[in-house]
């Protein structure tokens, strides 16, 4: 190998402004690993929290910088696309992550510490574990993992080629698999959730990868733009492209929790530490839908007609499965998980519709849903009995009496999830449904509306339990949280209302949110 030839490899130009949010977050993650290695244990946790929050804030400023200076375009030989959508999604992900970080940092509500096992490697119930707990140790590696995951989420929706997409998927998912399994309480469930999430995640990413291979075979490139070109250039529909496209979609649909690839959702949402569930439900959904939108809008729009039947079916099944099975749930986290499935179904309408309005609607919907979901799970983490969170719905009876404020806030979130006006959920739903209707998806809109009605049933049930039912004898209480969770709940509640009452600023933001093709 001659040195002359190596010199021939001209280094790609890198626009660091564009990359800044990602680099900052991943850099923060690496720093966090170093902190883990070299910082004394006693102050490690606070250092990590400070580092993570700083990183996220700086990353958000970097996103703003992109936005304000309109530094848009492809970078690193088209592997990343920085466009209006990217900026919006990245900003949204970072904000969700900030709220998520606040929740993860909570260590007041559980007398034993935060939501994570003192040492995940210690056997549940072992003397070691007890010793760790008694000493008040924390598994501070979660912060590094968290930042890595956020990094992956930031890349996922802006990846402009299938390889980057795949890698980003893994960067995002692997830390989550781990985080899911690290709950302090009910560790068996937590580990089981991790295993399920992991196995199914790997399974689905195998599909996605295989699809990428087929698409690569068809287009001789994995760049989304090239794929679109190849699609429009080829006269006949290629089986390669069809199968490949479907398989890629499957990988993405898995991540967004669309039926029939949704079954991990309830189990993982239930088993994971609630703070992680909250973060996942917001961050993963945003990132995955961002990616789904990009892949579908940029690369696969040529297949839209071939896939329409499939996507209609998936959207319908997703909406109905999410809402109908949600009716039968008795665990609040599982219920919210099914709600998230249903919302994925609603959002699929925006994906299928393929228009600027649909895009705006979907992005708005994501923004609204992310905060609402974060807030809802944050409230879930506060309702506890002696053994940890009181997740059984029966235990929520009479909550309105014990803690009217928290119950009211949760009601707000439920109403937003149900899509009642003056909450973000309604505006989002409206925008998406309107866009879908505009593109001739009226039947889907009707199904969505029916599903919303069914979903209303189980949201309302919780409200009934909280306010209209007398408490059971259980010793359930709403714990007074630390500033972090209180702040998280306040922020999410405010955002939920503000987006519902004055959504126009967000729509203004979205006005130039387009995909670079």
């Amino acid at each position: 190998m001659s040195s002359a030839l190596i010199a021939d490899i001209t280094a790609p130009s890198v626009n660091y402004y564009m990359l800044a949010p990602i680099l900052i977050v991943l850099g923060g993650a690496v720093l966090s690993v170093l902190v883990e290695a070299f910082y004394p244990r006693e102050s490690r946790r606070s250092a990590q929290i400070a580092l993570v929050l700083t990183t996220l804030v700086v990353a958000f400023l970097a996103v703003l910088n992109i936005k304000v200076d309109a530094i848009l375009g492809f970078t690193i030989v088209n592997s990343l696309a920085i466009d209006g959508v990217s900026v919006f999604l990245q900003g949204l992900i970072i904000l969700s992550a900030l709220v998520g970080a606040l929740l993860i940092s909570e260590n007041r509500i559980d007398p034993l510490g935060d939501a994570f096992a003192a040492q995940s490697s210690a056997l549940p119930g072992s003397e070691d574990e007890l010793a760790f707990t008694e000493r008040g140790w924390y598994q501070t590696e979660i912060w590094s993992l968290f930042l890595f995951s956020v990094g992956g989420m930031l890349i996922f929706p802006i990846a402009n080629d299938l390889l980057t997409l795949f890698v980003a998927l893994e960067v995002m998912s692997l830390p989550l698999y781990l985080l899911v399994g690290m709950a302090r309480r009910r560790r068996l469930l937590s580990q089981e959730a991790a295993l399920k999430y992991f196995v199914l995640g790997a399974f689905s990413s195998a599909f996605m990868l295989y699809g990428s291979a087929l698409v690569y075979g068809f287009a001789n490139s994995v760049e989304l733009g090239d794929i679109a070109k190849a699609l429009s250039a080829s006269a006949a529909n290629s089986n390669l492209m069809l199968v490949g496209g479907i398989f890629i979609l499957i990988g993405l649909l898995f991540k967004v929790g669309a039926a029939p690839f949704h079954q991990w959702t309830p189990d993982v949402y239930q088993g994971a530490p609630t703070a992680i569930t909250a973060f996942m439900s917001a961050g993963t959904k945003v990132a995955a839908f961002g990616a789904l939108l990009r892949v579908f809008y940029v690369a696969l729009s040529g297949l839209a007609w071939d896939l329409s039947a499939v996507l209609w079916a998936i959207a319908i099944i997703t909406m109905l499965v999410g809402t109908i099975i949600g009716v039968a749930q008795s665990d609040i986290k599982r219920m919210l998980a099914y709600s998230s499935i249903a919302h994925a179904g609603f959002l699929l309408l925006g994906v299928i519709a393929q228009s600027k309005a649909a895009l705006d609607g979907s992005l708005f919907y994501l923004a609204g849903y992310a905060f609402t979901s974060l807030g809802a799970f944050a409230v879930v983490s506060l309702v506890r009995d002696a053994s940890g969170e009181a997740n059984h719905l029966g235990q929520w009876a009479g909550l309105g009496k014990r803690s009217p404020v928290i119950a009211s806030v949760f009601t707000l979130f439920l109403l937003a999830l149900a899509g009642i006006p003056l909450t973000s959920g309604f505006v989002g739903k409206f925008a998406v449904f309107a866009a879908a209707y505009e593109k001739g998806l009226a039947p889907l809109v009707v199904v969505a509306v029916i599903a919303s009605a069914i979903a209303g049933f189980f949201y309302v049930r919780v409200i009934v339990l909280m306010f209209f039912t007398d408490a059971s004898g259980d010793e359930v209480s709403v714990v007074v949280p630390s500033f972090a969770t209180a702040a998280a709940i306040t922020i999410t509640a405010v955002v939920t209302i503000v987006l519902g009452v004055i959504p126009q600023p967000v729509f203004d933001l979205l006005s130039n949110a387009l995909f670079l093709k």
Partner: protein
Amino acid sequence: MTAYAWLLVALPLAGAAVLLLGGKRTNAWGHLLGTAMSLGSFGVGVATLIEMLAKTAEERETIIHLWDWIVVGTFHVPVALQLDQLSISFVLLITGVGSLIHIYSIGYMAHDENRRKFFAYLNLFIAAMLVLVLANNYMLLYVGWEGVGLASYLLIGFWIHKPSAATAAKKAFVVNRVGDVGLSLAVMLMFTAFGTVTFGEVNAAAESASTQTATWIGLALLLAACGKSAQFPLQSWLLDAMEGPTPVSALIHAATMVTAGVYLIARSHAIYDIAPIAQTAVIVIGGITLIMGAIIGTAKDDIKKGLAGSTMSQIGYMILGVGLGPVGYVFALFHLITHGFFKAGMFLGAGSVMHGMHDDVNMRHYGNLRTAMKITYATFGMGFLAIIGIPPFAGFWSKDEIIRAAFSHSPLTGIVTLIGAGITAFYMTRMMAMTFFGTARWQDDVHPHESPKSMTIPMMILSIGSAFGGMLLLFVANIESWLEPVVGFEHAHGGPDSSVLIPVTLTIVAIGAMMGWVQYAKREVPLLAPTDVSIFTKAARADLYGDTFNEAVFMRPGQYLTRSLVYVDNKVVDGVVNGTAGLVGVVAAQLRRTQTGFVRSYALVMVLGVVVIGAIAAIVGMA
């Protein structure tokens, strides 16, 4: 005075308002105020009449426009009073008889703790009845129409603690409502057809209206009249209405309110004049009720119910009379007024009897009361002579004219009226005999005595009316020409001559009276009603099965329907909703089982999903 005609209504209305709103504070003088208001109204009526008399016949009709009531599109209804010969006649009847009954009630209700309220209701009735007869359009008439219904409801149920009274009141109102539907339909028809609901315009437009329209309107109005005037088939409430205090029966259920149907038909004469079918229907209804009421009257032992049956029958005469057209209108109204005198008088007499008999109404417990209650006997007797049509008492003149008119229409109607006259003579004689003649059958603790002056004086005044009212109206007031400008008048042609008819009628009356006398004055009247009687008697006692019919055809099926609908609403209509929710629940519970908890089965679902999606895509791709 005409300009102040609104005082006619306002005075009693104000009386009612003061008495009702004033509460217990007005207890002491409430009855006096009520009576004063009624008398005041009468005074205004008299003054108005005098003013009217000064005018020529054509100028006598005056419309007093008070304010616009409802104006929507072309639907224009004023609150306006129509003063003409017809309405002023009614005004005087109502306020006159009404005032007498107010006075009577002062004594009759002296010991009732709610006397003030009674007078309030009476005032309310007077006001409503005046609205009814003074209205210049059917809508405003409707207000009076239901207003008197309300007053009747309140007064029938005045002794509210008596369940029978409450039921009777409700029944009266509901049955009246059925009739009211007729009135509202008539109004709607008129508006649809003519675009107006005022009497004048309707009557004017009716001249060019099609027979069909007129027929429908006529039938609808007849339905209304049936309800208010207790005509077949809506007669059943009147007998029950006797649960109310006797002055009420006298005023409302004899003299005034129940005759409103006659007034209504007379008012709408232009409609009927061009609708022979409707006219025939009126005649048939009148005839049936005439006979029915009379038959019912023959079997009642309750003095008030007997009189009520008689009222039905007499109103049947009037209805039949107005059904005859211009030959009958005037005489029907004539009979209405005379009937107002003698029937009110008899009711007050009955009240007086009851007053003396400890509120016992069973005539089988009476007998030979003429000795104990001379004034009552005398006044009642006057009424008796008037109703059976003995000349020169009032009833003779009016009834005779109706019979003559009926014969001029057809022999059948004539014969019906004659038979009616015969039965009337029978049951009235029976009543007279059972009450005032024969042997005293009083209970031991009953000591019949004459009523106080406040009661007897009105009775006396009314008996004077019964005696001379007919002649006065016919010969002095010349009622034919008086009412002719309003309702039209034709002399009866055809049929037997009065020289034949009067003797025949009187003969039949005499036969009826003889039979009654023989049976009830000459023979012993058992204390308990005999049970081994003919099916006719049984039927008559059961009000000719009117209630039985209503119960069997409307009430029981209605109750059944209601009950089953409640069931249907809970189980079916609501059931569909709850069922949908339940179905979702069941489906959810089943679908939930798919979430087995096994990773591999989730993976399987994914693979199957992929397969199905692939298959769909392949099929779509090929298609």
